[in-house]
């Protein structure tokens, strides 16, 4: 037996650099596009230059004759086998889903839609051949404006529908029994404020373009793809293409970012699989950045009509929300569910007695939308945090005072909200007080007053966002009540190897989050083994046979808990063997630091690694015990988790040019117990960059013909580190009571919280000039025009 090692130091709470970073950052790894298979063909996809048109004819003769070309396929060639790109979230029983061909057959409904595919011996030959395909289109009117799209007599996006409305999803607290009737709140309001906010369209812009390599093997198929959802894809690909599920293996190799952008099963994945099976050859498709921008799904794009009611003393009495949510041309995996997820977050941290939410999902001739970092929750948080500021102005109250008056106090948890969610824990007072002190709020307010008095051309604005979000997607029964097509559990397995090393298999497949490090820290503490002795395996359905993948800040709160349960099962079995080997009673054993010891008998111990070896040798096991030390666990959360925090932003606004510069950004997040504070900080920084980008920089813009004019990174303005301030981040730690780890999730917090903090700051700077709102992104030109209009 091996020597007894010292118990390792506590791993949970330790700021470790990530074990996966070296291969990810150097790129010496299996990015999908790095995969080479003998005999592999390369695909190129011809995309529609039209927003809305009938396909009259496609002539592929010349393209098929080009050098190196093996096949050219159009939608007509695969119409019988391609099925429809799956949507797993029929949010209402009468939701209209017109179907989503991977390759357009009779009509194109957005610029960038796939029309034909070329398979060639090289990527260059495939791309050259695209230019020889001749498509004759009959142009139709584009459908671009959501309100016009649902008006009488509007051009229909899809000829097989009677309206451009896909669904109306509604919730009302009086009817649901979770609160008072909204109509009474509206009728009795002492103060009513209404605003319309526009959530612009955003492009997820993950770093690694989407890429898929499909290997047909026998009557089965192995799909390597840069996806967030290998497990869901396996099932969906089986259902879509009629391949028996057990003949489909999906591998998500290292994946370079997703932000929700790699959540759906994509047309390109289906096309690559169809072509590979049809030709019996491995095929690779890797998109260009231009293709990614126009054909990978977009995010946000809502018109939000928000009405808030209150008493004169500032007590909120009701919130009435109507959304138009742009589905784009088609429904992808969770397209309709994104705004519905937001429905539960508009009331945020506040005690609204009455609430109504109505969302119309609308088809347009634009790229489909789907989940983008935060998915429904950033939209909701923006609306409530913006209108709280507007209400404060209407009441003549300090915006933070208004929030304090209405938020759930720390002693009131657990608290059941007006939409029926039970927030388990939180301390909004603590996070807010810390943030106010860190930014030097009172000094900034004094400086602001001085600059206003001096008529300084550069005005100072202060913005607040006191937010919460629902993470840890999700209790399966809740998803069932929302008509989602799957559950919200996660699976884990642990395999103790004879040498004492540990393999951990998780269904939560990472695409940059740091799972391998954080999960290793959890297992190290739980099993008392060294961090370095743990291997986290994921992203291959042949290794991780079940799982529900990575999105919605679920990996730690759900996937991490599955790992804890699996570890506990290993310990449970090891305890039986330890008792046998130590000739002690199981009940007399204690397990600590990887060692089983007999209570009251120091020196009589055995390590878990030695027990693993004992199960391998199997020379001396208790009767009836199988020779293995492995476990499986599937964890279904009982509740969501609810991270929260207070984000404060100070901006300088140059009133001559309209330029907004963030001077200071402070956030205090409460994500529960941090497993790895360094990863938490990294997630917050990245999230802030994306949330600030929505406030100030990014917008996908279509012209009047439905062309995406922001088709490159020259026109789609992504900020870089040079455009962002040095963030001041801090935490409060109120452990979640809904899971034993006390974790809440952090993947989306920065994105959700930051957008309204920045816009509130911009408006705060300009309010003395008469400006009440600026559409996002608050570009210098928009800010300048808002000032001109207010002064006119």
């Amino acid at each position, binding site marked *: 037996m091996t020597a007894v090692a010292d118990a390792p130091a506590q791993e949970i709470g330790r700021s470790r650099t990530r074990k996966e970073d070296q291969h990810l950052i150097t790129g010496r790894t299996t990015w999908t596009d790095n995969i080479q298979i003998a005999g592999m063909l390369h695909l190129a996809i011809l995309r529609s230059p039209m927003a809305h048109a009938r396909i009259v004819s496609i002539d592929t003769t010349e393209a098929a004759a080009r050098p190196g070309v093996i096949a050219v396929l159009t939608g007509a060639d695969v119409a019988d086998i391609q099925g429809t790109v799956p949507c797993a979230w029929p949010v209402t029983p009468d939701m209209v889903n017109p179907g989503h061909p991977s390759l357009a057959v009779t009509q194109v409904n957005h610029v960038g839609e796939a029309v034909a595919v070329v398979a060639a011996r090289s990527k260059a030959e495939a791309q050259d051949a695209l230019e020889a395909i001749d498509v004759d289109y009959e142009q139709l009117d584009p459908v671009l404006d959501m309100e016009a799209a649902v008006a009488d007599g509007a051009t229909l996006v899809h000829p097989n529908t009677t309206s451009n409305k896909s669904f109306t999803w509604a919730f009302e607290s009086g009817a649901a029994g979770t609160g008072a009737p909204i109509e009474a709140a509206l009728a009795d309001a002492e103060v009513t404020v209404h605003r319309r906010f526009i959530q612009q369209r955003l492009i997820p812009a993950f770093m690694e373009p989407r890429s898929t390599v499909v290997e047909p093997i026998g009557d089965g198929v192995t799909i390597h793809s840069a996806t967030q959802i290998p497990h869901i894809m396996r099932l969906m690909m089986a259902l879509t293409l009629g391949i028996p599920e057990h003949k489909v293996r999906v591998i998500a190799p290292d994946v370079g970012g997703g932000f929700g952008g790699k959540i759906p099963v994509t047309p390109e994945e289906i096309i690559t699989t169809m072509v590979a099976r049809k030709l019996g050859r491995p095929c690779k498709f890797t998109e*260009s950045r231009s293709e990614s921008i126009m054909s990978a799904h977009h995010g946000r794009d809502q018109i939000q009509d928000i009405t808030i009611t209150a008493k004169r003393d500032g007590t909120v009495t009701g919130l009435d929300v109507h959304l138009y949510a742009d589905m784009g041309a088609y429904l992808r995996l969770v397209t309709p569910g994104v705004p519905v997820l937001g429905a539960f977050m508009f009331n945020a941290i506040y005690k609204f007695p009455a609430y109504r939410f109505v969302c119309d999902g609308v088809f347009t001739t634009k790229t489909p939308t789907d989940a983008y970092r935060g998915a429904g929750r950033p939209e909701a948080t923006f609306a409530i945090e913006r209108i709280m500021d507007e209400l404060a102005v209407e009441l003549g109250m300090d915006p933070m005072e208004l929030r304090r008056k209405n938020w759930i106090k720390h002693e009131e948890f657990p608290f059941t909200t007006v939409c029926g969610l039970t927030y388990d824990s939180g301390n909004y007072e603590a996070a807010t007080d810390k943030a106010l002190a860190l930014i030097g709020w009172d000094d900034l307010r004094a400086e602001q007053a001085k600059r206003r008095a001096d008529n300084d051309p550069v005005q100072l604005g202060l913005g607040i966002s006191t937010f919460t979000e629902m993470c840890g997607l999700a209790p399966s029964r809740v998803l069932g009540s929302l008509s989602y097509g799957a559950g919200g559990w996660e699976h884990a397995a642990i395999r103790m190897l004879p040498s004492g090393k540990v393999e951990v298999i998780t269904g939560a497949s990472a695409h940059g989050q740091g799972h391998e490090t954080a999960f290793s820290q959890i297992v190290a503490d739980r099993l008392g083994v060294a961090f370095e002795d743990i291997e986290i395996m994921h992203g291959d359905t042949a290794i991780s046979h079940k799982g529900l993948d990575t999105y919605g800040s679920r990996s730690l709160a759900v996937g991490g808990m599955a790992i804890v349960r699996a570890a506990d099962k290993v310990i449970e079995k090891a305890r039986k063997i330890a008792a046998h080997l130590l000739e002690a009673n199981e009940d007399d054993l204690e397990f600590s630091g990887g060692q089983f010891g007999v209570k009251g008998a120091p020196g009589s111990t055995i390590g878990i690694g030695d027990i693993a070896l004992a199960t391998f040798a199997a020379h001396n096991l208790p009767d009836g015990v199988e020779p293995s030390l492995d476990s499986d666990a599937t964890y279904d959360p009982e509740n969501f988790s609810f991270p929260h925090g207070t984000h404060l932003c100070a901006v300088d606004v140059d009133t001559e040019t309209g330029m907004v510069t963030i001077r200071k950004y402070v956030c205090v997040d409460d994500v529960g117990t941090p497993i790895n504070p360094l990863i938490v900080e990294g997630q917050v920084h990245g999230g802030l960059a994306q949330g600030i980008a929505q406030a100030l920089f990014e917008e996908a813009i279509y012209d009047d013909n439905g062309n995406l004019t922001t088709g490159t990174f020259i026109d789609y303005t992504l900020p870089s580190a040079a455009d962002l301030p040095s963030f001041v981040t801090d935490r409060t730690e109120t452990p979640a009571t809904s899971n034993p780890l006390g974790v809440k999730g952090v993947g989306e917090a920065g994105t959700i919280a930051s957008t309204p903090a920045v816009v509130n700051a911009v408006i705060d700077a300009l309010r003395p000039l008469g400006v009440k709102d600026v559409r996002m992104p608050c570009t210098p030109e928009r800010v300048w025009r808002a000032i001109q209009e207010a002064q006119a």
Partner: protein
Amino acid sequence: MIPASFDYTRPSSVAEAVSAIGEAGEDAKVLAGGQSLIPVLRLRLSAPTTLIDIARIPELQGVTDDGDAILIGAMTTHHEVMRNALVCEHAPLIAQATATVADPQVRHRGTFGGALVHADPAGDLGAVALAMNCEFVAQGPAGERRIRAADFFVDYLTTALSADELLTAIRVPKTPAGWSTHYEKFNRVAQAWAIVGVAAMVRRENGSIAEARIGLTNMGTTPLRAAAAEQALAGVDVSAGAIAAASSHAAEGTHAPSDLSGQADYREHLARVLTRRAVLTAVGV
């Protein structure tokens, strides 16, 4: 994406390059630093038959002293230009404006001559070349000629260079004592093109502005001089009020574009504000 196929040649001297340009005909393109051309090729917006790569021609590299001027080789990278001692001493406006071009990666590959000959009106260096009265040195089959900056920029992405000519160097008059300069760039994010930029050269004499030269970036199909503002500035006191009043003429005679980065009226407004700021900064007020 992958560019359409093309022939590639890499001459090792200016003479070889000029004959290669002549032989390749009008569908050839000269490849300098590639920071504009390669994206255009990859997007398949252009499909030249031949690329003539001038990266390895020693005569096109570096900065030399030429008496009352400095000569900047067309293939000198932005990174080299902004750090070059001759440029920093005799043409600080060029050093300062070059430091605002795109991002460090682009500045390490992109070239001074390449950016100017691409003649994108949103590029920063055209306005500077105009304000500094630079001369463009071109080599063709018939020999060398010099083109004044005022004559060089003909139209959008179009210069006075003939199809058979190669830009070899830019002759930059040394900024004389008594002049002060500033480049004021306005863009949304660090690596973006200028929405508007203003290159200002100002000569002070006895507490007033004796002479001003103002170059404008992205206020028309070519870089422009703000002639009305230059006239208005000449002779005014070095005071914030007087400079502001004179700068209010900065957009006169311009033809600002309207695009995703800004409508024409906003650009005109910016030209006035930025001219004022550029001049004030140049004179240290």
